[in-house]
């Protein structure tokens, strides 16, 4: 009503909407790249400092919050460490035996993964999506679909690549999907992220075997190599009148504490 009598307001409204539309059109047309290079060049060092600060504050708050449970956690971790030591000793024996058999049968040696290290410089600005921004991009050989790991655990996939930065969709993002399988029972299915930070192992055929505490690994698809650890099964949902069974999986990495991640290039 008032805006009709105010040509300046009308002009500004049209200008603002035109600018916004222009930015989106430039992006859709693929001409955003030079602008993104400038934006990344200016903002990356600043946002890295901001992220370092928020991570430091978050770490302090988290430590303060867990002071009461530190003794109990310490005892539990010591017990788990002893168990793992025993398992490692047993696995070394199996590995040595496996190596001997491979040599005798003329198997090729497994190729080590080619990893590119990257710093986490930013996060999703909203509370629905779960993604990270890293300081490596197309110029470092990063490609869409490549797996991203931390401490040997799959934490996400590359979704968008700029020249100097890339966006990673975490395994906990609701749109994340990867083919996976149980490490012991070899049950195959699809891991997808859930709203609320959890993982869901779905589309597992009813005749497959999946158990609580079983590790889930990548089954190998596109640019995600086979055998990357994803998480551990917490609960299994099995119902006779369903076609598939499903399981809730917990990631083995706390994605909120990630500073350095590795992109798997081969």
């Amino acid at each position, binding site marked *: 009503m008032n*805006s009709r009598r105010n040509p300046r307001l009308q002009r*500004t409204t049209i200008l603002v909407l035109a600018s916004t539309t222009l*930015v*989106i059109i430039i992006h859709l047309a693929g001409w955003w790249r030079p602008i993104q290079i400038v934006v990344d060049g200016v903002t990356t060092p600043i946002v890295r400092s901001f992220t370092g600060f928020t991570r430091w504050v*978050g770490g302090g708050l988290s430590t303060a919050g867990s002071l009461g449970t530190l003794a109990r956690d310490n005892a539990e971790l010591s017990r788990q460490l002893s168990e793992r030591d025993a398992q490692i000793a047993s696995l070394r024996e199996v590995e040595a035996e496996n190596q001997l058999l491979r040599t005798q049968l003329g198997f090729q040696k497994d190729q080590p993964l080619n990893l590119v290290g990257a710093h986490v410089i930013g996060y999703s*600005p*909203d509370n629905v999506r779960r993604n990270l921004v890293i300081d490596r991009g197309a110029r470092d050989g990063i490609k869409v679909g490549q797996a991203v790991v931390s401490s040997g655990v799959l934490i996400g996939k590359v979704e968008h690549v700029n020249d100097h930065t890339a966006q990673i969709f975490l395994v906990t993002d609701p749109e994340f999907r990867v083919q996976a399988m149980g490490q012991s029972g070899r049950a195959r299915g699809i891991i997808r992220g859930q709203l609320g*930070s959890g993982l869901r192992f779905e589309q597992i055929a009813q005749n497959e075997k999946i158990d609580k505490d079983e590790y889930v690994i990548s089954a190998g698809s596109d640019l995600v190599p086979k055998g990357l650890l994803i998480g551990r099964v917490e609960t299994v949902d099995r119902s006779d009148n369903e076609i598939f069974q499903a399981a809730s999986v917990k990631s083995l990495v706390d994605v909120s504490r990630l500073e350095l991640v590795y992109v798997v290039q081969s």
Partner: protein
Amino acid sequence: MRTARLILLGVILGLVQGSLHGLSSHWVVPNIVLASLVFAAGRLSFAELATLALSAGIVLESFSGAGFGVQLLAVVLLVLVYKLVLRASTDASRLGFQIVLAVVSTVVIGLAVALSVSVAVLSDGWGTMVLRIGLESLYNGLIVLVLTGFWQPRQATGSYRLPAQMK
């Protein structure tokens, strides 16, 4: 010079927002860009507010996992709505109204981002999404409350400057 300062402020707000999940990726974090825009809506002219929103929106796009344009379009459209509401209502500058504006804006942006997720995922996790958007609305409302509470007593001092639209 003032425009350059607003662009810089918008960029800094966008960068701070992009680093907030460094506190913990599990926590719900406030949208300080949105809260700042609501706070500034009655204090800056339309062109200034739009400059702030555009610069912050472009930076937010660098971090956002939703499709390109969602964050930018959302903040710019909200600025247009803020200004229309402020022109239409004499009560618009009141604190309660600003908090309602912050809450409604948070819900609108939350839903805009949620629309970038498939329907199947939304139907599974709508409870979590409602909780997260609700908490974010609460945080944003509190930020507006704190900013306004901090700002209002300063109006009585000699160094207070009239908002641009009242000059």
